[in-house]
């Protein structure tokens, strides 16, 4: 009874109120080309930036890795720190990790782009956006957790071994402990940061999805 009463009220009030909201074709035409502020669009923009920046960085490191093998004399900017073979390992490891990051980023970016141009029902849409957001968050966590130890390890290596030889004891610290520590720190920092940025959003969507999946128990 209450719902039917409410329906009458709704129809009456929307007729009066919505009239004031009406916009012209010109407004629609202008608006459809503006920037989206949806959470998915925000994370998509971050991914696009990482994709472009990562691709450029990847190409550069691959070129330098090749150049350090074919023409070591041309690669001279860290001469006081690295030997020619160290250059190759440095650029090779950077190129490999950046390439992995770019490939993962590209795959997630494709999924997120496809998602934005679809119009499924609410339940499927929620399931898809949760999956897309979780993948994007994972990617952000792992790409940073992967890149940070490599950069930090090389910086430590350059600092520690610029004036002394690599010994087994120090080598273990540099090659095992530093990357492990920075990976762990970076992983936890990124997980916390991603949770802070998008965690509440995803949790809320999950609760909505759960409420739509309860039929069997109801």
């Amino acid at each position, binding site marked *: 009874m*209450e*719902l039917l*009463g*409410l*329906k*009458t*009220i*709704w*129809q*009456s*009030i*929307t007729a*009066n*109120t*919505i009239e*004031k*909201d*009406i*916009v*012209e*074709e010109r407004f*629609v*035409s202008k*608006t*459809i*080309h*503006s920037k*989206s*502020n*949806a*959470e*998915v669009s925000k994370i998509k923009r971050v991914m696009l930036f990482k994709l472009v920046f990562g691709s450029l960085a990847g190409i550069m490191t691959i070129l330098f890795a090749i150049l350090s093998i074919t023409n070591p004399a041309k690669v001279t900017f860290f001469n006081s720190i690295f030997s020619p073979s160290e250059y190759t390992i440095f650029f090779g490891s950077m190129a490999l990790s950046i390439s992995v990051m770019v490939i993962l980023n590209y795959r997630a970016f494709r999924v997120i782009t496809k998602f*934005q*141009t*679809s*119009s*499924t*029902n*609410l*339940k*499927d*849409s*929620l399931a898809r*956006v949760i999956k897309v957001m979780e993948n994007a968050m994972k990617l952000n966590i792992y790409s940073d957790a992967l890149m940070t130890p490599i950069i930090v390890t090389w910086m430590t290596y350059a600092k520690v071994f610029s004036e002394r030889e690599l010994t087994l004891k120090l080598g273990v610290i540099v090659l095992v402990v530093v990357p492990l520590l920075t990976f762990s720190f970076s992983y936890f920092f990124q997980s916390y940061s991603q949770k802070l940025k998008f965690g*509440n*959003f995803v949790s*809320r*969507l999950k*609760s*909505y999805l759960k*409420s*739509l999946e309860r*039929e069997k128990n*109801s």
Partner: protein
Amino acid sequence: MEKKDLEKIFIKKVTESQGIIHKVCRIYCDDDEHRKDLVQEILIQLWKSYPSFRGESKFSSWMYRVALNVAVQDFRKVKKQKLIFFQTNEFKENLEQNDTSFEDEKLKQMHDAIANLDKVEKAIIMLFLESKSNQEIAEIVGITQNHVRVKMNRIKIKLAKKVNNS
């Protein structure tokens, strides 16, 4: 069809059926600024989704689907959730006008109750208020008709409880 022609048709159709967007925004937004942002976001997503619209469902059903998807997934951090739609200035103005039915206290409490439903429940109650059949609601939300009935019963109980408690 060229993109320019497609855009023209889209703009015409959406402008004609824009009431759907405004109703969705009215039921989900807590202030005018938020409402304007949501109108803009829904228009953007409708345009982005338009190429996937093949006319298998009614244009209005497709619009409801996209608009509700955007509204449910809209995430705005607010310090305090305010009650919406029926508490906006427009509603207050309507209340002050001659229509005596709006002055019924029970109904006002009912309006507050709607504002306190979660986003999925708001979607379902809104489609119900828009006189959509259970089948249409089921298609837009993505659940079975039986589940729609279950949801509607729960919403009804929630609303009744709210009215009785107030």
